[in-house]
């Protein structure tokens, strides 16, 4: 068991190293590398940041500074299903804050947190370009919900719960 986890990790680091090799020599590569690393690992724990610093030959403090500056980078794991509630202007005017409240209540977490079972995390995002369908919720990278009312929230959550960890 232990060993296979290790192997899995090794594979991930190897994938990252290959990417770093591809973009090497480019002084602006840090942000790109971090995007890739987050895509591979799901988040950017300090070990991964140290690894990147070493590979790019820059101080860890610089990597850390960049990670903490940009909101898309996260050092904490996120839920399997990331629930992104649009709090752009159009959605706000159409009551998106009420949706956020309802999701918080139903999942019993705050914005930015992950549910205990690791299934859901809650995020506020800005304009998803679907203002006509406001208020809009996006789950994962491709599931869009438009003109959502707070009442529909429990049902939406249930759909994903039924899918479970799959």
């Amino acid at each position, binding site marked *: 068991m232990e060993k296979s986890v290790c192997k899995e990790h090794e594979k991930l680091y190897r994938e990252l190293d290959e990417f770093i090799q591809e973009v090497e020599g480019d002084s602006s590569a840090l942000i790109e590398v971090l995007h890739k690393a987050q895509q591979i690992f799901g988040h950017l724990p300090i070990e991964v940041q140290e690894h990147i610093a070493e590979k790019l030959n820059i101080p860890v403090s610089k990597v850390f500074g960049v990670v903490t500056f940009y909101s898309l980078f996260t050092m904490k794991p996120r839920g399997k299903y990331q629930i992104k509630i649009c709090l752009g202007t159009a959605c706000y005017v159409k009551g998106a804050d009420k949706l956020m409240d309802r999701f918080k209540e139903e999942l019993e977490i705050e914005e930015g947190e992950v549910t205990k079972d690791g299934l859901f995390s809650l995020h506020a995002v800005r304009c998803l370009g679907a203002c*006509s*369908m406001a208020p809009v919720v996006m789950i994962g990278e491709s599931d869009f919900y438009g003109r959502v009312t707070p009442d529909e929230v429990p049902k939406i959550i249930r759909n994903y719960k039924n899918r479970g960890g799959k």
Partner: protein
Amino acid sequence: MAVSTNTILICAGGACISAGEKSVKQVLEEKLREYALDGVVRVVETGCMGACDLGPIVAVFPEGVYYQKVNTENVKKIVEEHILKGRVVEEMLFEGPQGKIAAEVYEEHPFFKKQVKIATRNLGIIDPMNIDEYIARDGYFALTKVLTEMTPEQVIEVVKKSGLRGRGGAGFPTGLKWEFTRKSQSDKKFVVCNADEGDPGAFMDRSILEGDPHTVLEAMTIAGYAIGGQKGYIYVRAEYPLAIERLKNAINQAREYGFLGENILGTGFSFDIEIRIGAGAFVCGEETALINSIEGKRGQPNVKPPYPAQKGLWGYPTLINNVETFANIPPIIIKGADWFASIGTETSKGTKVFALAGKVKNTGLVEVPMGITLRELIYDIGGGVPNNKKLKAVQTGGPSGGCIPAEYLDTPVDYESLKELGAIMGSGGMIVMDEDTCMVDVAKFFLQFTVDESCGKCTPCREGTRKMLEILEKITRGEGEEEDLEKLEELGKIIIDSSLCGLGQTAPNPVLSTLKYFRDEYEAHVKEKRCPAKVCKDLIRYVIDSEKCVGCTACARVCPVGAISGEVRKAHDIDPEICTRCGSCIEVCRFGAISKVSP
């Protein structure tokens, strides 16, 4: 059967996706396969076609027939009737006030009629993945003309004469910026396209990138020639994966065709473009912060001067323009400066693309000539406010902008007029607000945004906006005092005067403009502890009218916290101590027995 030339365009803008575009596309493709048409009829996803509230939208070309509200059922008709039999599916056509609009005259739809499309001329008309379609609509003709017939100085002269101003927010004359960058002495220069689109209620730039990526590449290359640059970068938000994919594809095609790379069109001029991806920081839309971000650093702004035109990327002169600004360049080169300058007003030439949203009937992406009045925009194009509600204000310019009250609806949309009203043109978000919108709450919303996004470099911006937000929160909780309003104004002035970049310098605008036009609403919150629009949770209560309540129990069943009590067929009651003001009960009561009250 002349089916082989058909292309079916399906809008994959954000609104259409959230209305179910993906599954419509799937069924469409299955149907085409079923009739063995999948090899001959192409299905292409485009950027936003504009009429977002009618989505998902499907268009059949070359006829140019647009179908609205397509779903997984009626999409089959498009294949079986239109494609196979050549019969237009009448009942699915765009709907106007007088009923369905015949295919040929869909421009008659009020939503399209007053629009003039320059920057968005190709959106929803061409396949953005196919360079040939761009070329067929005069694509890369402007570049060819520039490289073979014009000197860089002549190009700059045309752009100057056109009167084009930056569409990224500040409205700086584009030709002048090009000239400054040209005049900066250096052997290396860069062109940057600002595709960071930070306004949280706007998606014009995204739509242009997704729907017509080549126009940006062509314009950047023209700019490179004009300023004497060799390399371009497009800085795109990571939140726009489709735009990034389309741009990558477009760059490859342009290189293949010899419009990018070494010795373009055999003229000896070389220029190439790369993409850089942001990481979620609003301040990175500011040009000096953006440059830091491209260099792989924290995206904090620098003091100007030096301006990027003098010292930009890696210290070299750099021209930065917005996506929409660039999208205007090829038509200006082809049709001439005088043509462009003939559209718009004295000081604001050409058109502006707006993302029209909020409490308005026809929402979507619109491109209108400068100088059109807000009234025309909102009523003639937007169809007015739905549900017979009264228009209260229009917000432009996002977190840097302001709210314009209904009295000023006849104001022409141009840089100066909007600024005079305490709003700004901004990048193009236009949000309509009705009587149910609380202006204090709106101001709080924008300030929350700035507090989240301040990069923290300047104390007034970092601490001052936080302080303002605290005051607004206090007011919306009903704990405001009369001095608070003056405090807000004072703080606002200090932040404007002492912040380094545009974020801080404009952050107080949403508060100051609402204080100016809706002071009575602030005063109601402060003096009477009342929210006239009945929005601020701490100042409202939900009540059930025992006369109207029939005891159907619908509300009690939907209440998530069990605040509603009452027996079947007897009047119900809400316990204000338990009620969280979620609003669910109002939605389900079919007897109109529940209402919000603010003392």
